[in-house]
């Protein structure tokens, strides 16, 4: 921090906590407190129980967590492949055509997820693309929603790559596919990791489009949380939310470790 005096440092920390606590920490702390509570009669919760967690880590809830994980991992991988492919192809285009491609990939982020959900529902409810009623329609919707972030992240990383690396590799006799596999992708690995983490986190928390599409045998955890809070089971819903947050955080930490190892410079 660029503040040297003791008084200045304390002031900076105070401002940080005044801004940070109400904005970010307080809502999360409320969810954490509620997940252990049996009632909330006043300012603070009352009673302490781990029963909500016992329920949140077995049966239907555990199944929903696995569903969320499988959906997020699959959608992130698909988004990473599609986004990276498009970014690599876009890098070979002219400035104007690349701008059009970027805009197309950003479009799903610019419209409400409900609209994307509806569009996916309409598009995949008729043969030959009949996915409605299957888990794949949820995965497709998540992929459409998060690909923009993968594409943006990899495009930005590609622009930072030294083109001389690719050119020298080619001059040494490496075919384009060999250059991609041995030089470009390894150099993009830190960005791919970051993009994967972002896509995963976004997919884990996605609800708006999911509620329009999910079949009964493919209920993600976010839907379960929404259903619990909707029927007034706030404490059970909070425990589910904490499980969702913790799982997401653990996966992101694991991804960031891979990313750190893959950072060469």
């Amino acid at each position, binding site marked *: 921090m660029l503040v040297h005096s003791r008084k200045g440092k304390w002031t900076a920390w105070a401002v940080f906590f005044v801004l940070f606590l109400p904005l970010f920490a307080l809502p999360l702390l409320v969810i954490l407190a509620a997940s252990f509570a049996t009632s909330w009669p006043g300012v603070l919760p009352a009673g302490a129980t781990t029963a909500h967690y016992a329920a949140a880590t077995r049966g239907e809830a555990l199944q929903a967590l696995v569903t969320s994980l499988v959906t997020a991992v699959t959608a992130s991988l698909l988004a990473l492949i599609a986004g990276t492919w498009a970014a690599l192809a876009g890098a070979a285009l002219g400035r104007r055509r690349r701008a059009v491609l970027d805009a197309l990939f950003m479009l799903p982020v610019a419209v409400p997820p409900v609209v994307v959900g509806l569009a996916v529902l309409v598009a995949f409810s008729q043969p030959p693309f009949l996915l409605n009623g299957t888990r794949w329609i949820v995965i497709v919707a998540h992929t459409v929603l998060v690909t923009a972030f993968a594409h943006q992240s990899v495009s930005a990383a590609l622009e930072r790559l030294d083109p001389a690396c690719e050119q020298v*590799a080619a*001059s040494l*006799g*490496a075919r384009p596919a060999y250059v991609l596999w041995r030089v470009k992708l390894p150099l993009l690995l830190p960005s791919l990791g970051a993009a994967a983490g972002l896509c995963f986190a976004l997919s884990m928390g996605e609800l708006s489009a999911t509620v329009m599409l999910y079949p009964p045998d493919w209920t993600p955890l976010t839907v379960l949380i929404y259903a619990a809070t909707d029927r007034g089971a706030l404490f059970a819903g909070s425990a589910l939310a904490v499980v969702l947050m913790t799982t997401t955080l653990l996966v992101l930490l694991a991804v960031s470790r891979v990313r750190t190892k893959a950072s*060469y410079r």
Partner: protein
Amino acid sequence: MGIRFDSVTVAYDGNVVLDALDLRVEPGEVMALLGPSGSGKTTALRAVAGFVRPASGRVFLGDRDVTDLPPHRRGIGMVVQSYALFPHMRVQDNVAFGLKARRVAKAEIGPRVAEALEMTGMAGYARRYPRELSGGQQQRVAIARALAIRPDVLLLDEPLSALDARLRSGMLAELARLHRELPEVSILYVTHDQVEALTLADRIAVMDQARLKDCGTPQELYRTPRTEFTASFVGNANLLPVTVGDGGVSFAGGMLKVDTGGAAPGARATLCVRPHLVGLGSGPNQLTGTVAEIQWRGSTHRLYVDVDGHRIMADLRELKEPPVHGRPVTLHFAPEDATLLTAGVSGDG
């Protein structure tokens, strides 16, 4: 294997960056492409490497027309200014990259990597990553990587410009040694540094504004440049505007005895005299003026003398009693030390 540019023109969006280049690099020759930024020298190198496609003209490697070949099928080694070492690979993997890409037999890769690293003095660094090496060491690895594929043609694009002056001088000697060890490799060396070009090259192609201005051995270009641009870019030069007379030229109201080489009397020309060939005191072809500036450079003094509105440089062995600023001095030069330039004279119209 030699390199031949056959009227090669490169243009970006209609903007010509290399204009009808005709140049031949003989097998085993070191050719320096020397010129300022934007002169087209790097574009010429990129045309050989296959990274730019000529709008017209052909590029040959030996007898093979490579104009339409992709870079990976040209069989050249290349070293660039930024070295472009692959940061995720150890030194040995960087050097082995070209061999693996070309599917050289596994048993052969190890010895060839060792040979290339030995040749560049980097054998002890094989297991290091590029980030663990200094700039000079990275440069050596880049050269080893290019040499490992045993190319017939080596392209060097400003390879020393990222190094400090002392390292650069050492690497110049290293490059000269490498070429002595690999006399069959043709080298195209792009630089804006005249010292590098003069030190390394068998011949120098001087480029400016997308065109080849001059081509010759370093000695030819230095001693008898054909144009003002060459004279000023290859070494320092005094360029004096003169008018051709009988048996000499007129300058600043006096006659100077030089070889006019059959130039028509009355024609305007430029007289090129190298600063180190100008002497202090009386002698042939005297010029009298006042000292505008004097610089001590350790083993030499450089004098800037104003003669009739023209500034003349003289590099003199360290003077025991250097002249004082503003004092009149007399300079001279031998007739055989001057070159009369009649081509590319400024103000020629």
